[in-house]
């Protein structure tokens, strides 16, 4: 009997080894055959592999860039700009939709029926329509806005026309703004890493960013020019200020509305999970409603909010790829245009995938960091 079980155990082991060996061989055969097929197919098309094309000039233009660009840029620079555009749009949408999502989620959690109704209507409307439908809808609406001369305006300092949204801004160039943004994010991560209270970390981060902006303004704004640049109509176009193309505005509006509806649901769920006894304990101690909210309810809720919130942030980063539907020059659009222009299919797809793996990894690390900061100290 014992010998029989030993025997059957042994055959099972051999079977497992065989299965695994077959899988390894199959994977190797697949890799080898796709490699050789790709070689013959690419040779037939007359395309040489490798990354030498990155040094060539592109010769084509695209809709949006934070950095100065021209058609003489190399592929490397153009792809980098695409990557920066994706990061810029993604992080802007993440910040805006998180703030809006928290506001709407908290409104859904209030006791007032009217507020609940309007917040629910918002969530049900924007969450239950495909994101890309919302995107092409807003793009169609913005294209039909009046021209620059009849632009909608707010006190003659902000304009909204079919050329885009023109806002007053600090008188700094795109590169410096970008460096400031990166510095601010870096400072935020450092502050998160250091073990100090969240409130103090926020103060350090905000004041550090403000000081950096002030220093940049002192150094880089030329003598005699104002600190704030206001857009103004010159002929048929606007000069000065921050100019956001309608592609960018449509992307921001669509992604923020959609994603904030999701985040609102996450926030509402988190708030609803806070045990009632904790709130009642706070009331019994005579704490004010505001203190109960900020010291008990929100910190408790954040622990269950942060993990799904992180997933939503990663979703937002990936969602920027649909910009190609309306011609926003994110990384995906730059890659697919480069692909039709050069035919360097495999290299470009590898770059695209590599960038997204990188974004994913970095964001996951960030969420993990926040998550660890949120855990109860005693655990």
């Amino acid at each position, binding site marked *: 009997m014992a010998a029989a079980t030993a025997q059957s155990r042994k055959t099972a082991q051999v079977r497992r080894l065989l299965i*695994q060996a077959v899988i390894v061989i199959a994977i190797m055969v697949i890799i080898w055959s796709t490699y050789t*097929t790709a070689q013959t197919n690419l040779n037939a098309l007359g395309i040489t592999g490798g990354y030498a094309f990155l040094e060539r000039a592109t010769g084509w233009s695209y809709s949006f860039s934070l950095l100065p660009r021209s058609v003489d840029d190399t592929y490397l620079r153009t792809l980098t700009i695409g990557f920066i555009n994706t990061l810029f749009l993604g992080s802007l949408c993440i910040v805006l939709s998180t703030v809006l999502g928290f506001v709407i989620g908290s409104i859904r959690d209030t006791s*007032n029926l009217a507020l609940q109704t309007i917040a629910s209507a918002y969530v049900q409307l924007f969450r*239950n329509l495909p994101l890309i439908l919302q995107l092409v809808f807003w793009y169609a609406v913005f294209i039909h806005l009046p021209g620059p001369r009849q632009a909608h305006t707010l006190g003659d300092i902000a304009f909204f026309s079919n050329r885009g949204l023109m806002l007053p801004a600090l008188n700094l160039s795109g590169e410096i703004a970008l460096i400031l943004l990166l510095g601010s994010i870096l400072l935020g991560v450092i502050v998160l890493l250091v073990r100090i209270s969240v409130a103090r970390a926020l103060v350090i981060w905000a004041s550090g960013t403000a000081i950096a902006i002030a220093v940049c303004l002192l150094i880089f704004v030329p003598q005699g020019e104002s600190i704030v640049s206001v857009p103004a109509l010159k002929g048929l176009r606007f000069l000065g200020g921050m100019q956001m193309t309608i592609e960018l505005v449509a992307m921001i509006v669509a992604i923020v509305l959609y994603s904030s509806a999701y985040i609102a649901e996450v926030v509402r769920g988190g708030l609803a999970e806070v045990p009632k006894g904790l709130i009642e304990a706070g009331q019994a101690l005579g704490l004010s409603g505001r203190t109960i909210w900020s010291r008990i309810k929100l910190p408790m809720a954040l622990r269950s909010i942060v993990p799904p919130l992180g997933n939503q942030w990663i979703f937002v980063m990936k969602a920027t790829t649909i910009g190609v539907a309306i011609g926003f020059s994110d990384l995906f659009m730059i890659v697919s245009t480069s692909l039709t222009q050069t035919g360097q299919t495999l290299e470009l797809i590898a770059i*695209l995938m590599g960038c997204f793996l990188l974004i994913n990894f970095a964001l996951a690390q960030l969420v993990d960091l926040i998550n660890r900061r949120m855990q109860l100290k005693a655990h």
Partner: protein
Amino acid sequence: MAVVSASDTSTEMVKAPSRMSRFIRMLQRRAFATPADTAISVMVFGLLLYILWLAVDWALVRAVWSAQAVDQCKVDGAGACWSVIDARHRLILFGLYPFEEHWRSTAACISIIATVVLSCVPAFWSARRLIPLWIVGFAAYYLLMEGSLIGLPQVTTDQWGGLSLTLFLFSSVVLLGMPMGLGLALMRRSKMPVVRLTATLIIDFVRSLPLLTTLFTAAVILPILLPEWLQGDKIWRVILAFALFFACYQAEVFRGGFQAIPKGQWEAGKALGLSQWTVLFDIVLPQVFRHALPATINMVVLTFKETAIVIIIGFFEMLASAGAAFGTGEWAPYYLEVYAFVGLIYWVFIFSLGQYGEYLKNRMKVDRR
């Protein structure tokens, strides 16, 4: 008899609050409790009513319902021009499918919708009923749309479009993705390190990439990597890639379901002398499906929403046919009406499936208590 009349008088005496008065009392408690609450409620309800009125005024009161020519919509003060839907709804629903064969498209769509609705009925919740149901529904769709196998004129997939293509993508992705997801989930739980590692790599890799990248790779890159006889139609490559995407997320949903099953059940099955596969299919999996149901419905809803993305890689699904409906010539100014119509179709599908998921989640919470 006497007893009945006694109970009658008692209900007469302690009158239960009518539905109306209960509603008013609820309003008092939840909207008009304090002066501040009242002020907020009046303002917010006022705003909501105003928005609602604007929408109704545009969409119903001032709307032009049917017009022989576009000119009738160009009257001053006219609201929505629903004539564009009247004129172009067949394009939006069926794409470039031959006009005289539209009844087939209609029947095919109904077969998919019926399949989805029937799968929501608890009586169908077993593998023995769900699997045949989906295969029959999908086969009916395919036979009707393609036609040549049942003696109708053949219509090739490149002529499929509109809502019927959206439903085709949706149903084939779910039908293919579900077993793939289960397979990946089982592979990830395997005792064999190579199998486990392969599944983990595939799942994590696909989940890190945007759906569009995966679909784009299938549409554009695979023809370079595969020999010609393996390439197949572009639409099938895209469906397979979409199904893989679905499967990788669904595998994680199933993994959550597996984690909810206590280990003792496996051991109990083994102690009874049942084989590993019997324990898996007859004891564990039914419970896994039950636990995973709400998250699965979430995934299905998400898939329906995401089908719209194939417009980017050149398929003529509902969003693309909507663009075509107002894209050319006379109907160009009426894009709002077309988007409202298409949006409503998507919204009704997604909202009702989502509400159903919520209902199930709550029902299961009650069951567990």
